[in-house]
């Protein structure tokens, strides 16, 4: 095993081209797996010294770019994330516990793509894009396409995540992240990422992504689009949760049964929308 610590994205990408090379970000997942003898990369490419990956910025139009090496704690405190984008702050704040949030990064979490992790649904609900860098150059991939299957992403071998790009959220929208876990800081049994806007009883913005209920976050843009412009009453929310349930593909695991996830997730969606509407001063 070899250890390298490049100081630029280009050098990191170059180092990653070797067979068996892997990025080392916070190490919260990778080192845990190495300790358990589950993986043994031939080359560890530490991204610690790549300054560009550690930055976050807000563009004048409200787009927020978060470097792959931003740690969960920093994202949880990111004041540049506003309105509906706050879904990401709330998700980051609910990951694990303070020491792990001081280590783990958004790039590492998304590259690992644990289906029960908190960023994937939040990023899908925020309509985020991933900026990837590889030997072939750079590209961006929408979050909805980035997460492909159980622990599988759109990353090609030798490619790394450079940043996550959140489009501006319409002013006045709210973002929220609700997580059900066995104990504080555990991975989710189920989670709901939400961005919502209402104007005079009519829905102006709606994005709901459900986590931990299948290989990738569940989202139904088609139904969301149909609900725009109208009220969000029990019937409308029911349409959305029914449609979402069709997108679930949960499994039984030590955290809960698949059946429970199917039962509880729609209830959590309903609850999350209700709370967001209250925040917006709307009645259901």
């Amino acid at each position, binding site marked *: *095993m*070899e*250890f390298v*610590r490049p100081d630029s994205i280009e050098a990191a990408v170059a180092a990653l081209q070797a067979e068996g090379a892997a990025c*080392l970000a*916070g*190490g*919260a997942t990778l*080192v*845990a797996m*190495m*300790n*358990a003898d589950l993986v*043994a990369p*031939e080359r*560890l490419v*530490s991204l*610690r010294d790549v300054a560009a990956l550690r930055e976050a910025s807000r563009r004048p139009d409200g787009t927020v770019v978060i470097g792959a090496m931003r740690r969960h*704690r920093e994202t949880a405190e990111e004041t540049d994330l506003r309105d509906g984008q706050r879904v990401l702050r709330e998700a980051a704040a609910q990951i*694990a*516990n*303070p*020491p*792990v949030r*001081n*280590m783990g990064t958004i790039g590492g979490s998304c590259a690992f793509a644990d289906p029960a992790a908190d960023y994937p649904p939040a990023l899908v609900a925020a309509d985020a894009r991933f900026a990837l860098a590889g030997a072939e150059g750079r590209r961006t991939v929408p979050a909805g396409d980035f997460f492909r299957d159980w622990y599988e992403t759109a990353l090609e071998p030798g490619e790394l995540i450079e940043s996550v790009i959140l489009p501006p959220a319409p002013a006045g929208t709210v973002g929220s992240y609700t997580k059900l876990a066995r104990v*504080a*800081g555990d991975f989710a049994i189920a989670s709901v990422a939400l961005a919502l806007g209402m104007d005079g009883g009519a829905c102006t913005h709606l994005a709901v992504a459900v986590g931990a209920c299948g290989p990738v976050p569940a989202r139904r843009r088609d139904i969301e689009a149909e609900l725009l412009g109208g009220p969000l009453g029990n019937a409308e929310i029911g349409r959305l949760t029914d449609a979402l349930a069709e997108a679930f593909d949960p499994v039984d695991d030590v955290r809960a049964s698949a059946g429970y996830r199917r039962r509880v997730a729609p209830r959590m969606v309903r609850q999350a929308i209700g709370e967001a509407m209250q925040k917006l001063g709307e009645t259901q």
Partner: protein
Amino acid sequence: MTGEPVTLPVTLRVNGAERPVAAVAPWTTLLTVLRDELGLTGAKRGCNQGVCGACTVMIDGEPVRSCLSLALNCTGRDIVTVEGLAPAGALAPVQQALAEGNAVQCGFCTPGILISAHALLRRNAPLSVDEVRAGLSGNLCRCSGYKKIVEAIVRASEARP
């Protein structure tokens, strides 16, 4: 691990002192180096998976898991372990508070708890019970039920000048 081990010499800054270590393999964690190479056994190995918190140390002023930090990735950082919280023979206020508040039972979680508490106490304001509970949520204690630990840290935060 596969392949021939490639080891490197490193120097780590631990509790204010430069500590050279002759040969460190890429997969060797900071916890292993602290305990086996530097004789600093204050940080404990409870799970080696980042969950229990017994190995928590401070890196550049923030509590992190030493079992998940590769030693080679810690060069140039400022590492503080429980042994570095106070000069030899003295106790930091938070150590004093835990010891006097009956907040130490078996003590295996204590070094990690102290590091998390130390980080909380650097925010110079009295801490609420809920702030302390949140701040300690990454440090499992199987003995105490947490109450006396939380009380002791709140008390330590109130006692500051």
